[in-house]
């Protein structure tokens, strides 16, 4: 079999998996829209489940990818220049996926606008929504400045997609003369720098804020930790970095030589962050566990040695930290190994998110409450239902499709070298 044939087969297999995921997801979404929360497994005592975990997972990817893009636009890191746009695009896409996840989770989906019309700014959740909105505007503006000239070029080439490019460029036309074009690029760079500079504190605030959203809940000792906002930020950078690493190393979007440079740089980030993340986790677990007394003890023991111990030890520690570290440190030159490592880091971070959201809710507020009233929704136990997974499958498959279309049809890798951001 030739390489081309192998590739063709692999492509078919990916397409088949995608189609299955998407169709299954579609069923889930229809169920969700017609039957409300009837098929969910979360209940009144464990009210936040898979969808909330997916939300913080995607939002983390977004913040991470965005902060990496700011290395290009704000801190002018030349090495990553060629993937600045991809990072921005991934940030926008994963943000959308996060918002859809949490939207499906609402009891009244049609009332989401109330967060804008009647916000309660004492609530960290209200802050989050407002900050996301600002963040969406900012990413879209950045993407527009980054790609407007290329979109214009694409539009001028004609073809069936020309009107789409024109619309995405918001009708922008780049000047023809070399001097004017240079001025135009300089203007874009200035704007990108300004927007990126606003974006950095914004992304730090909102993702730290998501950590605070949990950390401020004094009723749940497991969440109520001052370390959380930092933990969330580190997790965001780590998972976002992992995802970019997988994209750059796994796909043919830049030249061989550029890829090697970018991969080297990103590898250093990811390894550093991974180690830092483990240190934070060590503090988070070891301090309450050390003397074996304290309120969150039972929850920590559930995470480490409960029925889902493997989520922590195997999925998170082994697949999400051990294997990637080994691959990145031992086989840094192997493109496939690096792509796998990045992908594993990004993917398994979901285990961290699940282990963060769910265990805190498994402890009854009062001993005996678990037996006080017999009802399937009044239990301190939770495993996501297939329906919940199917909705996530829908979000992931749709996100993947948008990513594919974006990479294929949008100028996400600069057409002319000199346009690449900084």
């Amino acid at each position, binding site marked *: 079999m030739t390489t081309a044939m192998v590739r063709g087969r692999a492509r078919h297999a990916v397409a088949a998996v995608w189609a299955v995921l998407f169709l299954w997801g579609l069923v889930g979404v229809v169920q969700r829209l017609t039957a*409300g*929360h*009837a098929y*969910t497994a979360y*209940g*009144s*005592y464990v*009210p*936040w489940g898979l969808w909330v975990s997916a939300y913080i997972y995607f939002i983390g990817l977004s913040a991470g990818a965005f902060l990496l893009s700011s290395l290009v636009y704000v801190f002018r890191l030349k090495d990553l220049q060629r993937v600045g746009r991809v990072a921005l695009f991934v940030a926008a896409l994963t943000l959308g996926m996060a918002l859809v996840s949490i939207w499906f*989770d*609402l*009891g*009244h989906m049609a*009332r*989401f606008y*109330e*967060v804008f019309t*009647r*916000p*309660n700014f*004492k*609530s*960290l*959740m*209200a802050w989050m*929504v407002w900050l996301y909105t600002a963040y969406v505007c900012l990413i879209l503006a950045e993407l527009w400045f980054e790609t407007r000239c290329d979109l214009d070029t694409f539009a001028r080439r004609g073809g069936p997609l020309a009107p789409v490019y024109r619309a995405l460029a918001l009708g922008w036309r780049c000047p023809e003369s070399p001097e004017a074009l240079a001025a135009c690029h300089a203007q874009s760079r200035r704007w990108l720098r300004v927007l990126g500079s606003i974006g950095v504190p914004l992304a730090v605030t909102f993702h730290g804020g998501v950590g605070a*959203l949990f950390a*401020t*809940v*004094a*009723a*749940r000792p497991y969440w109520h930790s001052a370390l959380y906002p930092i933990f969330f930020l580190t997790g965001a950078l780590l998972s976002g970095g992992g995802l970019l690493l997988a994209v750059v190393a796994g796909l043919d979007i830049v030249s061989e030589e550029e890829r090697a440079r970018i991969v080297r740089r990103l590898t250093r980030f990811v390894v550093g962050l991974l180690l830092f993340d483990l240190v934070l986790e060590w503090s988070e677990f070891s301090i309450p566990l050390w003397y074996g007394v304290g309120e969150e003890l039972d929850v920590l023991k559930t995470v480490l040695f409960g029925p889902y111990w493997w989520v922590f030890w195997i999925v998170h520690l082994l697949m999400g930290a051990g294997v990637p570290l080994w691959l990145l440190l031992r086989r840094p030159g192997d493109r496939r190994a690096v792509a796998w490592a990045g992908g594993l880091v990004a993917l398994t971070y979901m285990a961290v998110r699940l282990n963060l959201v769910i265990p*805190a*809710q498994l402890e*009854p*507020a*009062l*001993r*005996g*409450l678990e*037996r*006080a*009233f017999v*009802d*399937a*929704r*009044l239990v301190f136990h939770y495993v996501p239902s297939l329906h919940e997974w199917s909705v996530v499958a829908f979000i992931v498959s749709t996100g993947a499709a948008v990513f594919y279309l974006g990479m294929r049809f949008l100028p996400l890798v600069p057409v002319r070298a000199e346009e690449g951001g900084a």
Partner: protein
Amino acid sequence: MRTLDDAQARAVRAEESMGTAMVQGEEGVRAEAGALTDRREFVKELLAATGGLAAWMALRPEDAAAVPRAARAADLLDRPEPYPEGNLLERMRADLLRALQKPVHERKWVMVIDLRKCIGCKACTVSCIAENNLPPGVVYRPVVEEEIGEFPHVRRRFIPRPCMQCDNPPCVPVCPVGATWKRADGIVEIDYEACIGCRYCITACPYNARTFDFGEFYGEGTPEVMDYERRPAFEYGKKWQRAPGRDGSPVGNARKCHFCLHRIENGMLPACVTTCLGTATYFGDYNDPESLVHQLVGSTRLMRLKEELGTEPNVYYLV
């Protein structure tokens, strides 16, 4: 009892017009016995006067003045004899009616639960479900059971757990849309029509006192969802109609105990208080030094749940 006010009249009207399937306590049974026929007539008159049940439901406590004076007086003429001294339910009702004569912000509703008197029958849990038409997954007042000691010295203790109506409620500031707040009389209210169902408040409650309405029915999967499950609830003084396949509020909302606000504003004690078999649950206005609850809160047996969190619960336990 003649001195008792229009609130008492409203109490009777409310009970009849709402047609709640509540199990009546002895207080209710005796009160009803004498004056039923007259009251029926009275209700008819009242409905005509106020433009029907729907209009009545919309009446807020401040609108009490809108009830014709003559009607109130007529009702009071037929009040049954007062209960003998020492009947705690009647005393609490008198406390309640006295409190209702004050403006809302001068009342402070509290509940006291005597754990030595609670027999763990769960009549309160059930009456609450009946009163508020609670669906699966929603419970306002579970009774937690604790076993203490070892054989042969074993005891059981029962801890009913309503909403604590905290003075510093952790569930309120977290709401992104301000759909839940602390009322002037101390009750933590939820606006079902504003709540987006994010469930942040449910996670923030340190007593697990908030639950979520998943839109389910006990009768689902059986030949018929029975009529009693389709009856409306009257929480917060509004009519809430649930039906299979309908996703309007309170489906999709956070729900919790509100001390039966719709009852107390109409001169009735909360359902759990009237149905408590052991007379272990007391309710009243803490701002009234004459009230039974004020007296009980002075007990040395007093305890509150998770006092250390600083939530300042308004439910007290006597241990």
